[in-house]
């Protein structure tokens, strides 16, 4: 008989975390403390977002540093199992068993998540599939579903049992705008229960959802604050012109055919309001 370990749904602490793949240091001495809510992870490809999320999901052990998830230590086998009982994880682009139906696949994961009471498990599986909008296709083979529907099957298994900690690697991939809105509601509900950490390339998603945003690059956190504070980083640093400015950190053509420049504007430049994208690029480029 084992004693249940106390879980603190809003406690997540990372100290000096390091992870190497051969000679490459994917995460470099990273420290972080979260106390619930919805946290968005932004960064270019190869920034270390997926590696960090895999460690937060107890799938990958760090080479150095310490982790406390839900108030428990994932390096202890007993604590790790307890964390996993209270954790939902969506890996990046997972392979799904294409012969299965959504109902069968989520039911299989539910069994592995120790939902052994058949009737209650069936009820829970139907609940999460309905929550992600798949009630109408839960008996169809996964291979016949669209990529957005397949992504929602993978998301559904992460929601089993209303976990206190949700770790989601690019959950909005393949979803259409309406499905993205539904995803926002689901994640907001998850954040109300505990902690949701998600990675994305979509700053609009972060602006709409997250109380806190982390910008990562080369295994380090470059920014940690609110989406509004990230946007403010670009205040006064955005201007438009007929031509790209070679001195700008970044220039690109807008739909109107003008060039939007980021950096230190020249005298007399036509400045414009900064967006979250601008703030993200300023932070990422300055450290890049």
């Amino acid at each position, binding site marked *: 008989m084992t004693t249940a370990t106390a879980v603190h749904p809003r406690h997540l602490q990372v100290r000096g975390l390091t992870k190497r793949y051969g000679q490459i240091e994917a995460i470099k001495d990273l420290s972080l403390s979260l106390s619930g809510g919805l946290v968005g992870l932004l960064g270019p490809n190869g920034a270390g977002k997926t590696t960090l999320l895999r460690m937060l999901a107890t799938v990958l052990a760090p080479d150095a540093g310490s982790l406390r998830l839900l108030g428990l230590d994932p390096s202890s086998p007993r604590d790790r199992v307890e964390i996993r009982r209270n954790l939902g*994880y969506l*890996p990046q682009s*997972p392979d799904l068993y294409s012969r*299965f139906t959504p109902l069968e696949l989520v039911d299989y994961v539910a*069994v592995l*998540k120790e939902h*052994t009471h058949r009737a209650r498990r069936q009820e829970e599986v139907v609940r999460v599939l309905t929550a992600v909008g798949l009630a109408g296709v839960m008996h169809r083979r996964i291979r016949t579903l669209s990529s957005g529907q397949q992504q929602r099957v993978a998301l559904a*298994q992460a929601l089993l049992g209303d976990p206190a900690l949700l*770790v989601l690697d690019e959950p909005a991939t393949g979803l259409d705008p309406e499905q993205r809105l539904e995803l926002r509601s689901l994640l907001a509900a998850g954040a109300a229960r505990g902690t949701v950490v998600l990675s994305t390339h979509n700053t609009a998603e972060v602006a709409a959802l997250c109380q806190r945003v982390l910008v990562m690059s080369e295994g380090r956190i470059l920014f940690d604050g609110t989406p509004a504070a990230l946007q403010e980083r670009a205040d006064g640093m955005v201007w438009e012109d007929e031509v790209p400015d070679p001195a700008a950190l970044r220039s690109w053509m807008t739909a109107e055919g003008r060039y939007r420049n980021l950096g230190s504007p020249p005298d007399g430049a036509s400045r414009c309001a900064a967006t979250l994208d601008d703030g993200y690029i300023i932070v990422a480029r300055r450290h890049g």
Partner: protein
Amino acid sequence: MTAAHAPILAQATWPAARAVPWEPLIVTDAALVVLAALTRGAPAEGTMPALACAAMAAACVFAVNDRGDALPAAVPTGPMRRRLHRLSVVVAGAAPAWRLLLRAVMPGVAVLGVLPVLALVTAGVAAAVWAPPAGMGGAPALPLLWAGADSVVAGRLGPAGEVLGWWRTAPSSVLVVALLVLLAGRHR
């Protein structure tokens, strides 16, 4: 495995069996039937069962490798439990077919039992666990390479070559060592 895991693994057996790609095993069986028919009467009685055994083991290692394992990566039922469960499902499905196949198409041949296949399969699965991610796909080749080396070069190596034949001559020991190597990688 503890008693607490028994109902979980019992309920997971049918979906785990459905998740296994059985096609390579079926194709291997069919290829062995054809090969046995073509070589019937030829003086290859020692090589044929060994080749069949290695091919069967390679197909089993391929089937145990779970491409869909990323999705339940963070469930309380850990990776080693899931891996051993899948291994037992594959072996339970493949072993009777293997015995039937040998009896049907290679009667009278000095037949290798299930244990050598199991030893090679477990060695292949253990290799997959310890291989770097880029090399995991090569694990099914291990049984073929091992049995191939045993057939081709073992005789030239003198007493040292006997080691290559342990999967046939001492399959229980190979199985135990492979299982220990496999269990040592339980967190991988």
